[in-house]
């Protein structure tokens, strides 16, 4: 395991990819050459650090905006790759990854049992920042972000939510499939989630490091949902929308605000969702604010807890 040679061996995610881009721009062949030649005696040792993941048990329902309770039945997250950097700032300023895990797995964020998912590989030394993707990675060699098998298992999504709420006594299934990835409008080639400068993360990784555990709690993400615009009962009104849900009733409205016809969705075992009428479930697709709420929560909401040397 131990090696006294350190090379810039990080592939894809950080330095090499970044410098390949610079070379493509024709900007710095000199630096690139220096970098490739840059295997230095540093006194660092190569290490492999066990990486484990865990979820958080939810106690009762998650209360979403407007005090709408949601019974969460599934909250699966595609997690990885993960990169640990020596500096306080990750992203492009992560000159060389100290440790990295280039795989991705599906994490059951409701399962508190830690599960080892792989090995962080790299060299000994200080790590002060992290960055990771949610199963969909952006490589500078690819035009579009690439779903890894973990995301493929979730239907090319980063996060899958399955839950239930109730409206007027009727149970309403709620589902979301959220993809979190870089786009042409953002930072291609950089992991989507990076440690905030305001977060503390500092470890001098040495040989024999027992492991790093990443623990996710989906409840604050889910709590950011506002289902009221889709589920709150409405009524026909002059100049209003052509169809309005009132509990399980899907009402077709005349321009003067009178009800033309009302269909009880529950007769067919369906629920009524504003703007959609009778459906089997409330699907939070990318046209909904609920989808955006989950995507933003994953990106800039509560972070997972990183803990070193977890107890067995």
């Amino acid at each position: 395991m131990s090696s006294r040679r350190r090379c810039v061996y990080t592939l894809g995610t950080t330095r090499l990819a970044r410098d390949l881009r610079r070379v493509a721009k024709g900007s710095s062949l000199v630096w690139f050459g220096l970098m490739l030649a840059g295997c230095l005696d540093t006194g660092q040792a190569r290490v492999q650090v066990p990486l484990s993941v865990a979820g958080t048990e939810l106690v009762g329902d998650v209360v979403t905006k407007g005090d709408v309770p949601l019974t969460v039945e599934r909250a699966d997250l595609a997690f990885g790759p993960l990169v640990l950097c020596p500096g306080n700032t990750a992203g492009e300023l992560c000159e060389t990854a100290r440790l990295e895990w280039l795989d991705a797995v599906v994490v059951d964020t409701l399962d508190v049992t830690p599960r080892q998912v792989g090995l962080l590989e790299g060299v000994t030394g200080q790590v002060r920042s992290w960055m990771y993707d949610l199963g969909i990675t952006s490589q500078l060699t690819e035009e579009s972000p690439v779903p890894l098998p973990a995301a493929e298992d979730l239907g090319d999504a980063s996060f899958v939510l399955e839950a239930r709420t109730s409206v007027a006594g009727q149970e309403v299934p709620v589902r979301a499939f959220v993809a979190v990835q870089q786009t042409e409008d953002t930072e291609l080639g950089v992991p989507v989630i990076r440690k905030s400068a305001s977060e503390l993360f500092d470890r001098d990784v040495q040989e024999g490091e027992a492991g790093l555990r990443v623990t996710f709690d989906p409840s604050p993400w889910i709590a950011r949902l506002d289902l009221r615009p889709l589920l709150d009962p409405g009524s026909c009104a002059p100049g209003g929308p052509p169809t309005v849900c009132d509990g399980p009733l899907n009402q077709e409205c005349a321009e003067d605000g009178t009800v033309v016809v009302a269909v009880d969705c529950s007769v067919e075992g369906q629920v009524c969702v504003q703007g959609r009428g009778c459906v089997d479930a409330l699907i939070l697709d990318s046209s909904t604010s609920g989808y955006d709420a989950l995507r933003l929560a994953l990106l800039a909401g509560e972070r997972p807890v990183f803990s070193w040397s977890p107890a067995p």
Partner: protein
Amino acid sequence: MINQQKLLPLALFHRNRSLAVALVVASGTGCSGSTATGDLDVLLESEDVIVEGLVAGSEGENIQDGWDVSFSRYIAAVGPVHLTQGGDASTEVEAEETHVVDLSKLTAGTLSLWSFADLEEGRWDFNYETPVTTSSANRDASVSEEDFDAMVAAGWTYLIDGTMTRADGVSCPPAALATPGDATPTGETNAGGDDCYTAPSINFVFGAAAGTEFGPCEIDEVPGIVVVSGDTKTAAATIHGDHLFFNGFPEGNEGGISRLAQWLADCDLNLDGTVTADELTAIAPEQLSEIDERFQLGGSPISPLTNMYEYLRAQMKTQGHFQGEGECALDVEAH
């Protein structure tokens, strides 16, 4: 974009990578045992968009959703400046002054504010702070006493006053939060179904605490500055002004960033023509339909991001640069 002609020696340095590499090699080989010294002047530099504004368009630093933006006040507290050799804290020297300057009045682009004399020649790491304003800070003549006192009283780092204009502009505040009063909707709605109201001109005024330590800084992968014996070199702490409109938090290259302003127009909840800190605080990011997949907030220096005022504070913490477009690591833990 920084006007490179404002910093001629630095511009030469940036444009000639061979020279840059040569200087690195020269400094790396060192002159051990030398006691030769030189001086350093440090400039505060205002990105030209703070003075000249941003215009709508599809290129470079344009605002890409149709709004022009100008700033009538862009007051920032900047300094102290710290230098170290090789990151060794025992070598740290500091120009401890904090200056409060209206960057929108910096028509010359730069202002010489800090100086270091008799530095050992060689390479120095460059770090500086944008702290919260205290009464011990130096008020520049570009800042009114009233504004300075307000910044001290509130503990702000920035006080920003700007205007965004668009001939066919609209404000579409989230329906759940909007208090439009007598305003009449245009009949159009945004992607979130929120009513839109005519708004060809919208002001925004807010102060914010955004204490941040920037550094070590680098430009084109070359860290810090080189002090040359018997000479006075110049370095610049550069404050960018367009990050408020970024669709993400880039660390490094800003080339992939878009600048968007409609979200800010939609924060005028009471449609009085001015977006305030209170309004921004009332809005969660997910309540703005404009904050869609174009926005990638995973690198925010503040987390969790719970409202749009925090979002702006987070962007303010990324505005410190070096020698124009150079990058600085940022550390907000001490603030």
